[in-house]
């Protein structure tokens, strides 16, 4: 009796190729993910703070000077996601955004804020100064003193 093994073999080969192709696609997608970039655009006449916190316990607080732009988070794809909070200088929270891979926090002239895409023509903004206090783990506030620049200004 003649047994046709061709159909079964071709099916197995096709299945293996599909799995392999899927794995290759996953690797390509994973290696091609863009970096994480969150910026802030402060169009108001007030100073605000951006507090960045990670689940592993690190917290940074950055100063957004009135009328300026800045980089809040700049990291390679795969870095743990951060929660970014917009604070007033008294550390009260204006807004909070968690797990965003990229975008711009726009502070309007009236002090309200929204999270949106980074404009295509946005030039690279400068780094932002760290602020002591408001939970900053690298620059903790001195006791009985308001948040101040790390340089003591």
């Amino acid at each position: 009796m003649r047994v046709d093994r061709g159909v079964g073999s071709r099916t197995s080969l096709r299945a293996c190729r599909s799995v392999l192709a899927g794995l290759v696609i996953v690797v390509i997608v994973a290696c091609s993910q863009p970096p994480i970039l969150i910026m802030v655009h402060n169009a108001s006449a007030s100073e605000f703070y951006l507090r960045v916190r990670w689940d592993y316990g690190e917290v940074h607080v950055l100063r957004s000077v009135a009328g300026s732009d800045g980089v809040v988070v700049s990291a390679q794809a795969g870095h743990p996601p951060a929660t970014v909070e917009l604070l007033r200088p008294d550390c009260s929270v204006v807004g909070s955004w968690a797990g965003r891979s990229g975008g711009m926090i726009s502070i309007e002239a009236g002090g309200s804020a929204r999270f949106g895409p980074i404009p295509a023509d946005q030039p690279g903004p400068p780094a932002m100064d760290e602020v002591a206090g408001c939970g900053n783990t690298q620059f903790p506030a001195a006791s009985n003193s308001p948040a101040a620049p790390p340089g003591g200004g």
Partner: protein
Amino acid sequence: MPISYYRLVGEQTIVIGTISGPGAWTRVTALMETTSSVTIGVSALRAPLPGTGENALELIVTLRDPLDSRTVIDASSGLAVPRTRCLPPAADLALCH
């Protein structure tokens, strides 16, 4: 790959900063602790993928013992890695050390 800086984020946890490019899988490949130093090596495996530019890459390293006053050494150069307290791109600023 060279390590640009490190930040202490916990007694036994540090974040190291390096530079990585597109399509690269960068990870810690060596970690050796002694009573006086912590030596860390970082390697990258690059895939033949399109893309340009490089980005600061931070990797979290958990130590066996608290870092305390031990020196962090870059395995690729044998040199001490400077400590910073800031996030990139500000990590190199003088006031962050």
